[in-house]
Structure formats: structure tokens, C-alpha cells
């Protein structure tokens, strides 16, 4: 009853505060939309300058998804300096057979795009060279056959030409390049997702989870700091309410808020922004609400360290940002071992993992229950610690008096 009264008051505060309420729904949607535009765009087509390249390579480059401009070396150098172009291609080496790729180099995405374009152009050039070589071989084969025919007509049966020519020698000495390659073409089958998936499709579920977590942490932390500065905290601690009831009320209040918030965000994200969703939406909302509960219990646990709204933001930098960095937003498989272990000690990692599994892979509760279990263990642990911290003051009073 008291727990519900606390939750109800929190919801009433939000209902009266139209601006914050609007912000809770609008701000995440605007940012998600911006991200979808940014990360959903196709691959970058680099701007490349060429300096005296052979025409075959030049035409192969023109076929790629890039802006290719031929110019003098001085022009190219100054444009590269001014960051007007991403790379300069020129020939070096003793025999002018080495392609020198001269990249601007500050942006690794652009460098990678340049490398991709050059690699594809080089492959085209090689294929052209190969087919040219094969047609020359065919010509040679025909002329050899003609020579053999002419020789036979002249009665020189015993003559064979070195080099494996002849009508029946192709079985032992192939001149077809494909016979020397173990694999000649590739084909990709997608277990989840598809060829047209953009970067954003992978990040979408992660961002939804992070948003709910960050918003709940800030709003619940601010709410507690306001209680302390307005004196209402002191006032309701003077009533016969237990710390568990206060914390429970806070968790339920912000949990309900997160439930509505994530439902609205998901609705708009799936219909208007075009999020992928392969799984059960109810399960997605259950996880976002669980993440909000982790956030509010963590907020309650650490908010004692903050005495102003400004300090809540500082606490967020300390307790929330590391979780965002290590939760799976960035690939940690090449990170140091200790960092991977640290990432596994944070609740957001499990929440985000479950969200991607449900939304992208379509997994059900039978495959994600471990993540749910871990997240709820964090909720219980934070709740108990926060309740102990809350009560500590009163208990200390009690013991100090009675222990005398």
C-alpha cells in the first residue's frame, strides 16, 4: 500500500510535468531516427585522385563506387593535404609496376573504403588480364592444331610439339585457369538478417536498451536528489515507512514509466523508422522494463553520493558510461581479456545481449532466460544493498542509543 503510494506519487509528478513527459518519448525517438539515417546510409564512396595510371586500371576504377579524378601529382598532393580527396593512386617502383596508394589516413572508415575500391579494381584488372591471356592461348591452340594438320598432310606423323598441345593432351595438361583454383565463386546464406541489412539494423536494439537505462538513471537520480534538497525526503522518513517500501515504490514507479516509454518507442521505431524485429515484442518490453529496474535500483544505490542535479550527471559518467562502452556496442573480441571480463560484470551487457537475440535472431525465452536471470539478480542485489544503505542511518541511531 505504501509502496504503491510512492509509485503513484512518482507517476503523478511525471503526469503533471508535461515537458519532461514529452521529452521522455520524443528525445529517444529523435536520436534513434538520426542514428538510423546516419548508420543506415550505404557504404561511403571515396574520392580518389589518379596520377598517370594505365588506361586499363583507370577504366576499372571508373566502374567502382567512387569518384575518380585524374590530375597532376602536385594538384593531388595539395588536395590530399586539404582533405578534399581521400587518396591518391600513382605508380612507383623500378618498372612502374607497383601501385602506390597514398591515403589521407585520419578516418579509418574512409581508408577502408579506398582499400576496398582499389582491391575490387585490381581484381577486375586481373580478370581482364586473365581472359585476355585465355583468348591468346586459344589462338595459340588453334594455330598449333593447324600446324599439326599441315604436318600430317606433309606426312610427318611422328612430330609432337612440346608444351602439351594436341587434341588429347588437354586431359593431362590443362590450359584452363579454373582447373588450378580450388574455389571459383562464393555464395552467402544468411541464418539471420539478410544482404541488405545496414549497420543500424544491428545497433537498433542496443540503442533502445541503452536509452531506457540512461533515461531512467537520470530521472530517478534527479528525483531522489530533489527529494533531499526540498526536504520531502526528511519529511517522509519521519513517517512509519520502511526503506524497502520506499525503494520498492521507486522501482515500480519508474518500471511502469519505462514500460509505457519502451512500448511507445518500439511502436514508432518498428513502424516509422523501420527497425527489424524477428522476435516476441512482449519479451522485448519485459527486458527493457527489467533494464529500467536495474537502472533505478543502481540509481538509488549510488544517488546518496550526489547532492545536486549536476552531480547526478557526474555519477552517470562514472556508473553508466562504462556500461555503455562495454555492453556490446563496440566489438570486444579483440579487446584485452580483463576488459571482456569487466563487460561481463555489468547488467547492461546482458540486457543488450537479450535484446539483440530477441529482435534480430528471433530467440524466445527458452534461449534468453540466462540473460533475464542475470539482470534480475542484479536488480535484487542493487535493491538489497540500497535498502541496507537507506536503513543504515536509522539502525545506527538505534544501536547507538540502546547500546549505551
Amino acid at each position: 500500500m505504501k509502496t504503491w503510494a510512492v509509485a503513484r506519487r512518482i507517476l503523478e509528478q511525471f503526469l503533471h510535468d508535461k515537458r519532461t513527459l514529452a521529452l521522455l518519448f520524443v528525445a529517444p525517438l529523435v536520436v534513434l531516427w538520426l542514428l538510423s539515417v546516419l548508420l543506415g546510409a550505404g557504404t561511403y564512396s571515396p574520392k580518389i585522385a589518379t596520377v598517370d595510371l594505365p588506361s586499363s586500371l583507370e577504366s576499372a576504377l571508373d566502374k567502382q563506387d567512387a569518384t575518380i579524378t585524374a590530375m597532376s601529382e602536385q594538384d593531388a598532393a595539395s588536395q590530399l593535404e586539404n582533405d578534399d580527396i581521400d587518396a591518391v593512386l600513382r605508380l612507383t617502383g623500378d618498372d612502374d609496376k607497383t601501385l602506390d596508394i597514398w591515403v589521407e589516413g585520419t578516418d579509418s572508415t574512409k581508408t577502408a573504403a579506398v582499400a576496398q575500391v582499389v582491391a575490387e579494381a585490381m581484381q577486375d584488372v586481373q580478370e581482364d588480364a586473365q581472359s585476355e591471356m585465355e583468348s591468346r592461348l586459344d589462338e595459340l591452340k588453334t594455330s598449333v592444331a593447324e600446324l599439326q594438320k599441315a604436318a600430317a598432310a606433309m606426312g610427318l606423323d611422328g612430330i609432337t610439339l612440346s608444351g602439351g598441345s594436341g587434341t588429347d593432351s588437354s586431359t593431362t595438361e590443362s590450359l584452363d585457369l579454373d582447373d588450378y583454383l580450388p574455389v571459383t565463386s562464393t555464395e552467402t546464406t544468411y541464418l539471420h538478417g539478410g544482404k541488405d541489412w545496414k549497420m543500424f539494423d544491428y545497433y537498433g536494439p542496443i540503442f533502445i536498451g541503452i536509452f531506457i537505462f540512461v533515461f531512467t538513471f537520470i530521472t530517478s537520480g534527479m528525483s531522489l536528489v530533489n527529494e533531499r534538497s526540498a526536504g520531502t525526503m526528511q519529511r517522509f522518513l519521519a513517517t512509519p515507512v520502511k526503506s524497502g517500501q520506499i525503494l520498492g515504490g521507486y522501482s515500480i514507479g519508474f518500471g511502469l514509466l519505462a514500460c509505457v516509454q519502451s512500448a511507445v518507442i518500439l511502436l514508432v521505431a518498428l513502424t516509422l523508422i523501420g527497425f527489424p524485429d524477428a522476435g516476441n515484442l512482449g519479451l522485448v518490453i519485459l527486458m527493457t522494463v527489467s533494464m529500467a529496474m536495474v537502472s533505478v535500483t543502481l540509481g538509488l544505490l549510488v544517488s546518496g553520493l550526489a547532492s545536486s542535479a549536476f552531480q547526478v550527471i557526474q555519477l552517470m559518467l562514472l556508473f553508466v558510461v562504462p556500461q555503455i562502452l562495454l555492453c556490446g556496442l563496440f566489438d570486444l573480441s579483440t579487446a584485452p581479456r580483463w576488459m571482456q571480463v569487466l563487460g561481463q560484470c555489468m547488467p547492461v551487457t546482458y540486457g543488450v545481449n537479450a535484446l539483440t537475440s530477441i529482435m534480430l535472431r528471433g530467440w524466445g525465452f527458452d534461449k534468453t532466460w540466462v540473460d533475464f536471470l542475470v539482470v534480475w539478480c542484479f536488480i535484487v542485489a542493487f535493491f538489497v544493498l540500497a535498502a541496507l544503505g537507506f536503513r543504515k542511518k536509522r539502525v545506527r541511531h538505534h544501536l547507538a542509543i540502546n547500546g549505551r
Partner: protein
Amino acid sequence: MATISEADRAATARHAATARDAATGADGAMIRFDGVVQKFGTKTPFGDNRKTVLDGVDLVVPRGHMLCLLGPSGAGKTTMVNLIMGNEIATAGTVTVMGEVAPYPKARRWIGYMPQDEALYDDISAAENLRFFGAMNGLKGRELEERIDAMLEFGRLTEHRKKLVADYSGGMKRRLSLGVAMIHDPDLLVLDEPTVGLDPDLRLQIWAEFKKLTKAGKTLLVTTHVMDEAERCDEIAMLHRGKIIALAPPRTILADTGAANLDEAFLVLDGTAGTDPAATS
């Protein structure tokens, strides 16, 4: 100030029976201070940097009395209130409320508290504030709604019940804050500077209301730094530099000191206290 409604009286009567379960002290004292010393600051092996705020306070407030805690700013009034509410713990000595020590497992239900600052939720309405604090004190259902109406009527706020507290004037906030302190019909009311910053007519009305509450058997502890207000109390405890320099009805204090008003009386008593070595520390 509107008079206490019939519903209010009924609730008072209903609580009267259960209120007795929360035992008063053996001597019937609602509040009792025994040699209470309160120091703030830190004590290190290199020196004692603690400031003494209360220096051996003994005080008994019997049931049904209205005691006025009178003293200049910084005398230790709010510290005494915090000790009574269990917000702080005394460095030495004991504070008991209705025979219990903090955190008052049984007595807390019967204490009403109005802090010095309004301590209301600005971003919700008056009725929602009252509902929240009522629920925190264990009221529910119909009884809670009745008490909310009674308190709104008491504070003359019935027509503003749906207004956000942020839009209230200072006087309205103070009346609402008093209503919040009384929502659960407590036996003991601890009011820290309840009339500061109020208009004279409103102040008179609030004091009249306090008289009514004591007549109904409530115990009140009111702090103030305004001397002429204190004259309305049954008993005055004059607090100066952490010590109680006088504890008597206002008329007795005036007679003993031969002063014309409490301001003069305070200066007379202050002069004698000034020779106390502890007071100059």
C-alpha cells in the same frame, strides 16, 4: 482558519482509543531530554574540532501541553527538533518520545512533523501531497479521503485542491504543510518555525488553531524566534547557546525577571548566562 470539521473530530475520537497503546513515558511525558549533548564536526587524535550545539539539555513535555522552544537563530532549536524526530542522534544523553528511543517503532505513527522549509512536492497538487503523506502514515481508503478533505478545509485550500503546489503562495504552502503534518491526526505535533514569514492575521489564526489542538488533548512543540508569539504558549523553554536558560510559563518568566516583555526578559537571562564558561566556548 476554518474550525476542525465533524469528520475530523470523529477521527480524533477513533484514534484516541488506539493512541493509548503507544505508551507515554512512565511519568506521562511525551518528550523527554536527559542530559542531551550534541556536537557537530570531527574528532581526530590531533584535536577536537567539534562544535557544541546542545550542552546538557534536560526537558520534559507532558501530554496535552504546548511548549514553545524560544531562542535566537543558531541557538539549537532545529537540532532539538531533529533529535526528537530521530533525524540525528545525540552525542551524549537520551531523547525519548512516548517512552521510546529513535527510531520509534510504535510511537512514530503518532508524531506529526512540520519542518522549517515547506518540504512539499511542488510538481503535484495539494490533494496529491496530502494523499501521499497520509498513505505514508498508514491511512487508506475512505478514511484517507476524509482526512484529505478535512485538512484542505482546515487550510482553506478546498477550492485549490487540484492546483499544483508550485503555483501556491507562501501562506498557502505553509497552511498545506501544516495540514500534511496533521493528516494522520497525531498525538504529538513537532512544528519547526510554523509561522515564519506569514501575515499577522494568518499567524493569529494558526495560534488559535494550536490552542484548539491542545484543548483536544494534543501535545505541541513549537519553535520560534519571535518573542511575542511565545507569550501565547503554556510554557516557554528559552534556549541560548545550547542551554535551556529558562523553563516556565510566560507570566512566571516576566514576573521573575521583572521585565515588561519577553525580549527584555531574554536579555536579562542572557546576561546571567553570559558568565557561564561553556556559553563562551
